[in-house]
């Protein structure tokens, strides 16, 4: 089990009903973690619409998670 800190933005923040949370997960990678959290919070965005950042760097979905990692799922961006 890894202890992961999540931060949520935009639509995911609203659907999760929180800005951040700490979770203990058995998911081996970021993709598995998203599926777990999407089921729990009812996220409407499919994983193919998202990017993921680990410790404030863009990361692959297959990246293994380590205890203490900070994970952010990134909805489609719309600056400007």
């Amino acid at each position, binding site marked *: 089990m890894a202890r992961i800190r999540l931060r949520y*933005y935009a639509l995911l923040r609203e659907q999760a009903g929180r800005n951040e949370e700490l979770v203990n997960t058995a998911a081996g990678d970021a993709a598995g973690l998203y599926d777990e959290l999407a089921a729990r919070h009812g996220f*409407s965005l499919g994983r193919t619409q998202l990017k993921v950042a680990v410790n404030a760097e863009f990361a692959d979905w297959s990246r293994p998670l380590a205890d203490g990692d900070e994970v952010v799922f990134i909805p489609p961006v719309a600056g400007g």
Partner: protein
Amino acid sequence: MSAFEFLRKPLDPAALGAALADVAAGGFVSFEGWVRNENDGREVLRLDYEAFEELAVKEGASIVAEAIERFGVRGAHCVHRLGELGLGELAVWVGVASGHRAEAFAACRYIIDEVKHRVPIWKKEHYRDGDSGWVNCERCAEAAHQHHDHR
């Protein structure tokens, strides 16, 4: 001054442009993104901007550095508003100073295009009909829902 910054108060284009003053630059191009009263056929009243700031400032600074390197311009800077913005307000400013104008136009265009595609910033539109929505999210959320079983 960092090459990419966020501000929670109104942007001042005159001051931002002045910071790029350079007697070796003959051309200066700036882009301003203004809050528009309409998007996709819906009447917009105001916007909320939020960002994953820690990553966004790194990605934004990378984009500005790429533009300087790729187009050989003398200076460039991008500033983005956060928080609630009303109609006509300035949401994003990009400025580029260059020896000659062709490179200034190209670099400015590059920066705003890349910022819109790569930097984790989101905007929620509030419509006259009382509805609201995250730009680029609502429609792809519907698509995701329809294809839920195929993920």
